[in-house]
């Protein structure tokens, strides 16, 4: 079997199964969405105003969840050492790990995000754009998040540290996606924000693996 495909399949299986996967991230997503109307009051007009932004924020937070498992387990059981010495370049391996993580958790959340926004009272016309934004944004979150996960290998309280490192890097995609949604909601041109979100995701996919591989090599050295 093609080693790259095999690795991707393994990563998806790990991210999806063993207590991870949609049950956890989807459950977190649903729970955090539930808290919003409980905290800010159930008035439909007010909720409808903040619904797309709220769904988008909760999506960004949910993207943090599985990051701790992305490299930590492989680092602890030695699999990462094998990957660093395998024929596949470590950069490519890191990219595949992030891709698998996104396919198993980010992509399913992209389906849930429009549902949550509509449940909060957003116009159903927003749903296609929110779905597309969540797909592209999820890719950006997975690849920038991978940098944080790789950097905090070997650190104490790695999961919390990953979140502290990664959240500032989430600022541009959150702005671009939120801007596109807001523009569509108020009848303005939304393509610019969506295109910028896609550009950020593409840059993260291209450059993120370099930083991740450097961080993994450093942790293994």
């Amino acid at each position, binding site marked *: 079997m093609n080693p790259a495909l095999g690795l991707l399949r393994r990563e998806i299986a790990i991210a999806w199964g063993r207590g991870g996967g949609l049950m956890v991230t989807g459950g977190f997503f649903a729970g955090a969405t539930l808290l919003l109307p409980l905290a800010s009051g159930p008035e439909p007009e007010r909720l409808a105003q903040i619904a797309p932004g709220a769904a988008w924020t909760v999506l960004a937070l949910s993207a943090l969840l599985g990051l701790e498992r992305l490299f930590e387990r492989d680092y602890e059981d030695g699999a990462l050492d094998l990957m660093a010495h395998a024929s596949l370049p470590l950069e490519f391996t890191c990219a595949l790990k992030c891709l698998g993580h996104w396919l198993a958790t980010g992509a399913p959340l992209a389906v849930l995000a429009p549902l949550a926004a509509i449940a909060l009272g957003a116009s159903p016309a927003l749903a296609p754009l929110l779905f597309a934004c969540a797909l592209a944004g999820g890719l950006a979150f997975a690849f920038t998040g991978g*940098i944080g996960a790789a950097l905090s290998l*070997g*650190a104490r309280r790695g999961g919390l540290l990953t979140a502290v490192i990664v959240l500032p*890097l989430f600022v541009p995609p959150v*702005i671009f996606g939120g801007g596109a949604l807001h523009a569509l909601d108020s009848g303005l041109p939304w393509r610019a924000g969506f295109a910028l979100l896609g550009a950020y995701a593409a840059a993260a996919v291209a450059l993120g693996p370099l930083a991740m591989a450097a961080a993994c090599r450093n942790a293994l050295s």
Partner: protein
Amino acid sequence: MTQALAFLYNPHRFMAFSAWAAPILGALALGLATAGLWLGFTAPEDYQQGDTVRIMFIHVPAAWLGLFVYLCLGGASFLSLVFRQALADAAARAAAPLGAVFTGLALVTGSLWGKPMWGTWWVWDARLTSVFVLFLFYLAYMALRAAIDDEAKGARAAAILALVGLVNIPVVHWSVEWWNTLHQGRTVFAAGGSRAASVFLVPLLLMSLSYMAGFGSLWLVRIRGEVWRRRAAAAESRLAR
């Protein structure tokens, strides 16, 4: 530039250089600050902002320095990562808390300025938000450094993060600008010459130079402290054997 850096790479030469450069820069900072504050407090009141315009002399240089120190941090991290220079790593480590303090000072004074001017402590406008994100970058750098027990590994991980931040800060800045612009636009470096009156510009310039010199002095002192700390640790491990 590269020759100057190559000269300073040698820790002995660096220690000899910084032993007199740090006090001179410190004295220069104090002198410039005295002149800048004197001119700043004797400047006439702004016709719109009244006395509160004087916060500018504290606030604007702090914001500039917050960004400038990050550039220093990124440059030093690059040198330590690519050329494995121990002194460059000491410089990066020494710069981070200073940058965080300047950024924090810019946030606090900006907030104090915003209350009388805009009627609110904080607005989510472009400049404030991007300075806030810069502050978070400093926090993340220091948190990562502190959380990894192996010092060499922590240093390299933090250097990688600093470079990631260096790529990201222009993007963050630009994206935040795109998101919202309510803060007043560029004044000092506006196209077609400055729009600020020279009574305000001269003290602002003096204060900026004072901040720069003060940062240089504190930076050198902190790098010296870091070099001493490492020498002490090395001596300790020699004794233990």
